[in-house]
């Protein structure tokens, strides 16, 4: 950092180097406890003032800030460094503008390169300004330590009493206390003013009704693989294996429907599936569970074949796939609901019905 050259501890260095400067000693500076009522004199230009009314001012006004640094040589060197920083910042700023024109986007690589040059030049420009300004204040400006008195925050007893009197008189004049009819009707009138905006928000959404209890799954609806939207037959699963996501036919692109109706199906070897899985709802060891985690609704999308666990990546609720997707670990309280499934006459996997219980997170109205 630029300020380390000022000596070990900045605080010490500052206090040390101010010695002998008139007006910098706190006690001397503190002398007039009230703020000066005169227009101050900007340090670098003793003869001139900002407001040009110096003629009316006493000329012997003591300086509040020293005009010169204690080590002019060091300040001179620092000045050149600061100027160099500012020049770098200026060049980087111009480079930013040039790079904006030179580097085109509309491709991944173009965006990457544009980002690189624009960001670098921008960062360098600000860095130059920041470093320059810091060295300026640390090494070019004279070191000072000033003291200012704090004014009491509490008002004087007289002011408080005066305010209380004004307030009381105002209250009396208004009749707010002496005319309770006015006061009470005014308060009553504000009640609907507070209620109306809340009522206005009613149409932000429909009432939930029983919609959380149902999904779009209906009897005979085919199970399509998510993404490719292909109907499935039991023969598509030649061996036990991974988990695939399926969606109800006709709702492949309906996010509102899929947010509740997404299902995972897993094929197990014969005899692996056990209660509480409803075996009647499975086909050839293929079972379908809701993909919507019963904790907070994330898709429970991870399946570990060796342990046959379904894991929700959000909060790591773990479900036992062959045994009714019961909760093995994690914050979920309910098993993943099982979708009743069968095959239709054409041999495709279809739903027997909707889920027999609500899918997804718990909620108050749910039993």
């Amino acid at each position, binding site marked *: 950092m630029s300020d380390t050259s000022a000596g070990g501890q900045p605080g010490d260095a500052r206090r040390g180097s101010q010695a002998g400067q008139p007006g910098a000693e706190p006690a001397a500076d503190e002398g007039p406890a009230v703020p000066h009522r005169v227009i101050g004199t900007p340090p670098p230009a003793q003869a001139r003032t900002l407001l040009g009314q110096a003629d009316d001012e006493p000329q012997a006004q003591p300086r509040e800030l020293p005009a010169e640094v204690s080590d002019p040589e060091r300040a001179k060197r620092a000045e050149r460094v600061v100027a160099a920083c500012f020049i770098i910042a200026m060049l980087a700023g111009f480079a930013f503008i040039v790079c904006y024109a030179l580097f085109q986007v509309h491709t991944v690589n173009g965006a990457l390169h544009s*980002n690189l040059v624009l960001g670098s030049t921008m960062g360098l420009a600000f860095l130059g300004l920041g470093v320059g300004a810091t060295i300026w204040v640390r090494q070019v400006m004279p070191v000072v330590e000033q*003291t200012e008195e704090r004014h009491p925050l509490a008002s004087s007893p007289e002011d408080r009493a005066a305010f209380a009197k004004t307030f009381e008189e105002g209250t009396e004049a208004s009749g707010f206390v002496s005319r309770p009819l006015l006061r009470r009707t005014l308060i009553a009138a504000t009640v609907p003013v507070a209620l109306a905006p809340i009522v206005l928000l009613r149409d932000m959404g429909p009432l939930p009704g029983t919609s959380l209890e149902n999904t779009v799954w209906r009897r005979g609806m085919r199970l399509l693989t998510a993404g490719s939207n292909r109907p499935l037959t039991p023969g598509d699963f030649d061996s036990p294996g991974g988990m695939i996501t399926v969606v109800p036919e006709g709702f492949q692109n309906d996010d509102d429907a899929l947010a509740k109706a997404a299902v995972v199906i897993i094929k197990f070897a014969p005899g692996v599936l056990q209660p509480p899985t409803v075996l009647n709802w499975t086909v050839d060891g293929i079972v379908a569970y809701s993909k919507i985690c019963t904790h907070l609704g994330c898709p429970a999308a991870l399946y570990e074949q060796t342990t046959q666990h379904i894991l929700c990546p959000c909060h790591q609720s773990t479900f036992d796939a062959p045994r009714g997707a019961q909760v093995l670990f994690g914050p979920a309280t309910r098993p993943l609901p099982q979708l009743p499934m069968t095959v239709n006459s054409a041999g495709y996997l279809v739903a027997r019905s909707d889920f027999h219980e609500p899918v997804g997170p718990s909620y*108050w109205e749910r039993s």
Partner: protein
Amino acid sequence: MSSNPLAGVGIWVDDRFHAARGARALARKIFPDHWSFLLGEIALYSFIILLLTGVFLTLWFQPSMTSVVYHGSYTRLDGVKMSQAYASTLNISFDVRGGLLMRQIHHWAADLFVAAIMVHMLRIFFTGAYRKPREVNWLIGIVLLTLSLLEGLAGYSLPDDLLSGAGLRILEGVIQTIPIVGTYLAFFLFGGPFPGHDIIPRLYIIHVLLLPALFLALITAHLFIMFHQKHTQMPGKGHTNTNVVGAQTYPYFMAKTGAFFFFTFAALALAGTFAQINAIWLYGPFSPTAISAGTQPDFYMGMLEGALRVMPAWQWTFLGHTVAWNVLIPALLPLGLVFTGAAIWPFLERWITGDKAYHNVNDRPRNAPTRTAIGMSVVAFYGVLWLEGANDLFAEHFDIPLYVTTIVARYAIFIMPAITYFVTKRICLGLQRKDAHLLEHGVETGIIRQLPNGEFIEETRPLNEDERAVLVARPDIPALPSGGDGDAVPAPGMRGAVGRVRERLHHTIAESVPLPDVTADGHGNGHGNGHGEIEGNEPDGHAPAAARQGDGADGASQADA
């Protein structure tokens, strides 16, 4: 009258606004100097950068969930169905020059904003800067932190990518579990069932208008109150509760704070250049059937995420209703405890200590051992939940079984804060003892001297006045009126169980290593009264300084001269 070219402008302004006196007071205002006072400025400048970059982003962002098929510059998603919000975010990233940079600076600035607020508040807490007269600003700060979490949640949900969509899904699930009104609130917020078509536009207006307006109002109030009450200062020579020591605004503070703005902007620009953040094109558009593993929310959501993960599966069902404690407790309790605790702490401490004085000189954290220990135990509590929010990454990278991380965290959220409290308090008292030792014996110089009689001693040098002033600054905790533990009649307010609790808490909070008597030299600020009776309770005890002999005492008396 004057050759100053600014004089004309100055007169023009002053003729109309009577500005000279006020402007001089502004220019002359003293700001104290300490590195930790910059933390709030980082938050402020991050906020300004958020406003600047955010306005840029709104020029192209389309807060719409209307479904479109993408045919843009990012060819890997060509032909993919997505929302307009996501498509326009891709457009900003790949088709607007500087768009990606502004997006990444905006996101980094958001993280820095929240982080700076948090660290700033820790600084305020540990130095006791929230005490009278600054309680209101402390409360405003807590509201600002709360709003910043909401603002961040709303903001990172806007691109409607797969990652943020999962976040919204979790939000919906959490709202649904609120007893009685939960499903209604969720349906009102989302305009029907999740995901619907309303949430992005609604979050957008919350993110770009509602909350920023609140931020502007509260930050303005925060700064004006700070300005009006004047900044606190750290202990030091000549630093008292009735003055402020530092350098004046013009030119010193202006130059420093301006430089700091540039540093903040430079850091964020370089982060936005070289550190990729929220690469939404890699996550893909939101789909309710898909999710990616191992993804993390922004850091400030990590604690909530961890709380949800660590919670056991508790739930009540009765009379046809469900109370999902597995969601309600982690969603409300940890942050609720931290924020509510932070909000009532200044008033609780004030009640316990009976300290009604103004405090403009900060405490060094070691000099308020109980406060520091409480703060650190809250940090530990937060930290455990925060780490648990990334437990899958820990499990993966360190090859720990996933469930073990969660089970460990379930115990750690109770054990770690307790251990941290105890350890921190002992460290503080130890540091106080070290300070007392320095005051008594001076600084060891490392010079070994042999006395004529052959004895070796190490030379010490006395503390200089600056060092001494820092060490002797101690919070002055007044003694409570008698609780009547002996035959005496208890004072009002000290009677009954409440009085006994207060006395017990006061005893804990006032625990400190006493200052040695060698400070009675005019530099001490009249503390030391009240430390006598506390000394008796110190487990280790501490020999009165007067009983000690040796070169250290000599050194100290030299410093007095």
